[in-house]
Structure formats: structure tokens, C-alpha cells
């Protein structure tokens, strides 16, 4: 009881977050019912007709459902992979720099894109990759033919993955930089005395030191395997790249919001959530069995 009293203020700090979670994540969950109904707004949830699994069955009969799932997974997986590798490498590189001013400046600059919305950045990306944009000008200087990057199914996914990673790697590296400061400097001194060079120290001290964090971050990003980034793709895609760039979220948007098929959109959303939840459970299990860390 005394402990409770002591902690009550700390718990109170969590309150706004909890309220937010309940209102915006738990309450809307009741809407899931719609996935099993033929939901008609005029009738409301209580009176709409039940159709059981029909919406789900329909999703898998859509001719492009396979393509949409595949696009989503490929783009999301690419983003996940770069989202781990790039920030880790960047953090390690930055860690090797001893000039503080330079280090801080670089850090600040690479954070910046994180704070810009895709609506804004889309215009920048469109411009950079435009047919008469800087990249193509560079190519023509080297006497290559210009490429229609944003209209090419070959280039669309890489560009999505690359630009997302460009936007987020600075922000993503914060946590690794923090983890790096937590490594005991004594270890480096000892290794130096033993004759280990920089590379050796990186391999045997730094990397093992931040490995648990890398594992946790990877696990936490797994449920996003079906979130390929609506904001980014919605602002950058066009009918030419539907083949490689139409993802679950953009599809839901077109069907659910523009055609007002709320049931179908809910069903797709539910599938996404279930797969995400399963993945996080599996990943947690893996991390628990293969290391002494656990997330939950």
C-alpha cells in the first residue's frame, strides 16, 4: 500500500496516454463487428445484416488481392530491413567521430526529414525523380537516357523504400546512439591494451553491446509488415504503378472511403491487425528463446 502511494504520481503520468489508447484504439475496436456484416449506414451496426465470412471470402476473390498483399509485404519488408541496417550503421559511424560539434550538427540535420509530412516530402521526391528533374539531368550528362522513375514499376518500390529510409534513419538512430553511450568505456580500454584495432573493437564490443536493442527494435517493427506507409504511397503513386505500388491501405482507401464499402474496408483492416498481432507474438517468442531478453 505504501508503495502504491509512492508510485501514484508516476502512474498518473501514464493516464493521458492510457485515455488516448482507450478512446482511439480500444473503443473503435467495436467497429470490427462491421467486418461480419453488410453494413449500411442508414441501418447502423445493430440492424445491418450479418453475412459472416462473406467479406473475407470476397477479399480473396478480388483479382488483384494477391498483388496488393505482395506489394505491401515487399515494400514493408524492404522498409523494415533498411530501417534497421541504415540507422545502426549510421550510429556506428557517427560514434567513431570524435569532434563533438560536427557530430551534433550531422545528427540534427539527419533528424529533420522525420518531422516533415509525406504530403510535403512527396513534392520533393516527385521533383527529384521527375523526368526533367535533377537525377535525370545527371543521367543525361553521363549520356544515359532519362527514366520515368515515378511511372516505372521497376523503380517505384525501391524509391519508396529508399526515400522512407532517408526520411527516418536519422530519427531511428537516436536509440542506437543512446545504447552506444551505455557501453562501458573500460571494455574499450582493455581491448586497446590487448591490441585490438578499431574494427576488432567494433565487432567484439560495440556490436554485442547494442545487439539486444537491435533485436528489440526488430521485433517491434515486425507487426508493421503489412503497413507499407499509406501517406507516402498515396501521395506518390499513379495508375501506371498500381502493379507494383498499390498496397492494402491505398486499396482500402479507394474501396472503403471512395466507394463507401465500410464492411469490406473493416474486414481488410482486421486481417492486417490479426497478422500483425500473430507476428509480434512469434517474434517475441523467438527473441525470448534465443536470447535472455524478452519484450513482455
Amino acid at each position, binding site marked *: 500500500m505504501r508503495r502504491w502511494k509512492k508510485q501514484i504520481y508516476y502512474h498518473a503520468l501514464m493516464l493521458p496516454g492510457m485515455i488516448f489508447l482507450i478512446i482511439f484504439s480500444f473503443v473503435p475496436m467495436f467497429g470490427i463487428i462491421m467486418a461480419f456484416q453488410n453494413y449500411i449506414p442508414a441501418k447502423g451496426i445493430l440492424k445491418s445484416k450479418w453475412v459472416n465470412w462473406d467479406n473475407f471470402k470476397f477479399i480473396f476473390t478480388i483479382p*488483384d488481392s494477391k498483388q496488393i498483399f505482395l506489394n505491401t509485404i515487399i515494400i514493408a519488408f524492404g522498409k523494415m530491413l533498411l530501417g534497421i541496417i541504415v540507422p545502426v550503421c549510421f550510429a556506428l559511424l557517427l560514434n567513431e567521430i570524435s569532434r563533438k560539434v560536427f557530430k551534433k550538427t550531422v545528427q540534427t540535420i539527419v533528424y529533420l526529414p522525420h518531422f516533415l509530412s509525406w504530403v510535403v516530402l512527396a513534392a520533393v521526391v516527385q521533383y527529384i525523380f521527375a523526368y*526533367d528533374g535533377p537525377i535525370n539531368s545527371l543521367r543525361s550528362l553521363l549520356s544515359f537516357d532519362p527514366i520515368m522513375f515515378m511511372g516505372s514499376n521497376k523503380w517505384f518500390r525501391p524509391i519508396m523504400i529508399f526515400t522512407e529510409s532517408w526520411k527516418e534513419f536519422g530519427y531511428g538512430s537516436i536509440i542506437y546512439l543512446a545504447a552506444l553511450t551505455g557501453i562501458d568505456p573500460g571494455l574499450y580500454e582493455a581491448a586497446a591494451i590487448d591490441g585490438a584495432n578499431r574494427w576488432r573493437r567494433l565487432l567484439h564490443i560495440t556490436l554485442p553491446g547494442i545487439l539486444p536493442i537491435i533485436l528489440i527494435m526488430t521485433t517491434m517493427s515486425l507487426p508493421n509488415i503489412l503497413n507499407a506507409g499509406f501517406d507516402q504511397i498515396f501521395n506518390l503513386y499513379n495508375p*501506371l504503378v498500381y502493379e507494383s505500388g498499390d498496397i492494402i491501405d491505398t486499396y482500402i482507401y479507394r474501396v472503403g472511403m471512395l466507394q463507401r464499402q465500410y464492411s469490406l474496408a473493416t474486414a481488410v483492416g482486421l486481417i492486417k491487425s490479426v497478422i500483425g498481432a500473430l507476428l509480434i507474438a512469434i517474434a517475441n517468442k523467438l527473441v525470448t528463446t534465443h536470447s535472455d531478453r524478452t519484450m513482455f
Partner: protein
Amino acid sequence: MLRKIIHQCLLMTITICFTMNLFTGCSLKKDNATQETGVRNETLESNSTDSWELARTTPYEPYPEEVTYSIGLQVNASVTYPSGSDDNAENNGYTRLYKNKLNIQNKDVFEAVDGDDYDQKVSMAITSQEIPDIMNVDYKTLKELIANDMIEDLTECYNNCASDLMRDIYASNDNKSLDMATFDGKLYAIPITSISAGQEMLWLRGDWMDQLNLDEPKTIDDIEHILQEFVDKDPGNNGAGKTVGLVLNPDIYYGGYAQAYQANNIFTYYGACPKQWIEDKDGNAVYGSVQPQMKQGLQVLADWYKKGLIDQQVAIRATDDITALVTSGQCGALFCGWWAPYTLEASYTLNNEADWRAYIVPAGADGKVTMFAGDPNQHYKVVRKGYEHPELLVKAVNISLDYNQGTSCYTDTSDIAKEYLEYVNHAYGVDPIGGFDYYEAASLAYEHISEAIEGKRDSKNMIMYENTLFQSCQKYQEALDKGEKPESTDWLNYNARLVSSKLMHDTPVNVIQPVFFDQTDSMPLKWSSLEKLEKEAMLKILTNEKNIDYFDTFVDEWMKAGGEQITKEVNEAIK
């Protein structure tokens, strides 16, 4: 860009609000019902039934006591009021006129920007079973509301209270508007009519044509030649390779009704009618985009693309980007209806030399261009089931029509009417009721204005809006006579109303009447997939990523993905 931001905000708010409203809906409905019966009893007791009955059945009779109606207001992005006034959405030049004429007062339940935004708000209102007394809905929602018995039958209200002017306007499109709002002989809505868009025109930079000594285009080859010259010789001094040829809207480069940056004329020239449900020679309804006639039009455009005559970045342009190309003088060719000057005004403001000329080309063997007619209605005004005074809607629309399409604006010299006109002419605020116009409104406007300019018509013998346009056109001519530079608004009105409208008015045209504007049962689920297929295939063919034979593959896929079934359903629906 803005649209996208709005879409995104919308997506978030909708998901949140939507779910929260779901459960509250039913209990609230009961409260409303009890409240209404209370009001009804009260009114019956405290007023003589006669004057209420008279108001109920006569077009212009005001109500004995103030009647309020709640409304879902459709606004535009920037609503302004006269400076210094403390007017608001419920008390302004429009509402005071309605109050003065009929003793009615609006109460806004929600306000939303026209389009998707408004439709979502309507959906939410329906979900929560709390719809305003009067609101605007689209056709699909109208049917849903009727099926769930949520709106009033307006047949009697219309028969009793519709003014001659209103009937006249509906008659201007063969009462198609009313027919669409009539189900089992009952009229469920006051439809807001569409105005005929007229033929699609090819708009070219005349100053560039003069500079290059180019003749007026007549055939497809002429158009190609002009585009080639524009692109090759760079008459706008944009720098080599910077001039784009014809601009097209990538999202939908054909088939949209009354939209800019399409190429419908190229398709209708070969007998195709893209994106429309039309009757084939056996009398069956077919979808225009999957008919073999499409191939020739596609072939022409794909060739032009290959030769660099169509904007090479067409796939990634948004409408705003295209308008920017046109405005900045990088593009000198586009397809658009007679109203193009509204878009081109900016280009004139930037560069007074920009001399846009319109041509109705390419004409078919009979010397005429073919266009397809659009949906007779834009949307539908409906009245909530159980609302005390359903005829109020009809009566209020009468008033709006009288002042805007009738002559009340000249005969009524009261302060309230003056203020109302002030509001209309400066586009202040938002009219809670609003009206609609004759089907051939644009042609009529041309006739009236040109006659007035020639002195053959009294400038009061035309509707108020036309009078405003007439004055603007006069100012344009005066400025030219004095050798001054006309203001760009006057340039716009003159070019749109007297130049291109004249062309539309004088040029005979073939009109194809699509047979189906509705949705069938499978459409809500399958149409977005089919649309995706279509957009993807057509853009790929246009940009030469796939050759023209891919069209057959597309048709195959389209049929298999539900197109065949939907075609069947459409045929059943129109029987």
C-alpha cells in the same frame, strides 16, 4: 496537394467519429420522435389551422409563425462575409430573404466543404440516425434513404408548391431530373440539375499559331501537325525540349463529364463513348470503355505520345501540375469545354500575349463533333422523414430560383433583396437552400448577353447572373476601345461567354445519351477493381508501355473481374 491533405485528415476523423457514433444512434432517434410529436401538438393548438394549411399548399404563402429547419450546409473552402458585418451562416443576406419571404429560419447541424467531405458528413449523419431536416445527397445515398424510409415523399409538396419557373427549368431537360428522383411514382427529392457542358473544344495558343503560320485545325492530322510544330519550334521560348504538347489528366483522360484535360473528341470521332453506359446497335447497354471502337482513339493518342506530342510526364501529373504548365506558358494545347477561360485566366494575367483560341475538332463525316450527355442531376435535396413542413424545401427553392433564374431581382427593390443581390454578386456566405439552372443555361447566357451587347435586348430581360456577366463583357470592350488592357476577370467573362460560348452555341453537335447513371448491386464491391484495371491499362497503352493489342487483354480481364456480370445487371436495371 490540398485535396490530399484534406483526404488524409478526413480519413482519420471519419474512422474515429464513425465508430463512436455507431452505438449512440438508436437511442437518440427515439428522443427526436417524442420531441416532434410535442411540437406538432403545440402548433396545432396555438394557431389557426387555416393559415398553416394555406402556407402548406401555396407556393409563396409565408408561414404564420417562424419555422426552423435544420440543415447540412455545403460550403466552399473560403467563406467570406461583407467586411464589418457580423453575419454568420445562420444570419446573412440569404437567410434574411428566406425569413422575410417565407418566415423560415435555418439552423446548421453541420457544415462541410462540397464533395467527398460533405458526403462523408452525410454518411455520418445517417449512421447516427440523426439527419438534418434538409440536406444534399448523391444518388446512391438517396436510394439508401428511401429504402430505409428515412426521407419524406415530396410528390404532394411539389405538386402544390412548385413555381412555374421551377417546372419550366425541369422541363428544359425533358424532366429527366425529376424522373431520376421519382421511385414508384413518388418524388423523393428536389433534384439539383446539371447544366449541359457542351462540346469539348481544343484550346490552342493563337499567338503561337500566328507566329508559326499555322492554319486552323480541322482533322486529326492537322492537330498532330500543330502539336508537332509547338513542340519542335518552341514558339513560347521555353528552351529546347521544354514545351510540352497536349496535356492530359492521367487519372481519367477521357469519359469524365465537364472536365478539363481530357481527349473525348478523339474517342468519339471513332465512335467510342468511353466510361459511359450506352446502347449498342442491338439495343443492349454496354460499357463504352471496353468497346472495340476505343482502339483507334487509343492508337492515335499512343502515337502522339511516342512522338512526344503528349506531355511525356502525363502519368505523374496532378491537375494542379497541369494547370501550372498551362499557366506558365509551357503548354499551348488542351481539351476543355467552353468554360476553359476560367482556367486560362491565370495564363492571361501572367502574359497578356496569351491568345487562347478554341476549335471544335475533329469533326466526323457529317461535319459534327459527337459528345455524350451527362447525368441530369448533380445531387438531390431531401427532407427528413417526420419533418413538420416538408413543403418548406420546395417553397424556399422557389424563392432562390425567382431571384437567380427569374426576374425578382429587378422587380424587388426592398433593402433585403438588395442585400441578397449583394451577397450573390460578391459570392459572400453560403446560400442554405440555393437553386439550379436551365439545362442549356450556358447557351441561353450567350444568347442573352450577345443580344444585349448588340442592343437588341434590354439588359434587365435576363437573369441576374447574366446581367453581371454582360456588364463585365461591356467593360472588356470599353477597355479595348480605349486601348487599355482589360482586367483579367473581364477577359475571362468575355472569352467564356461571348467567344467560346458562341462557338458552342453555333456549332451543331451529335449528342449520345448514356442510358445508365446508377449503380447496380455488384458495383459497390467490384467497381473499384474494374476502375483500377481500366486506369492502369489505358495509361499503359497511352504511354506505350503496352501496345494497342493489350486492349484486348484488358477487355478480357475486365469481363472476368466482374464487368460481364455488371453489364448484365445494368441491362436488367434499364429494362
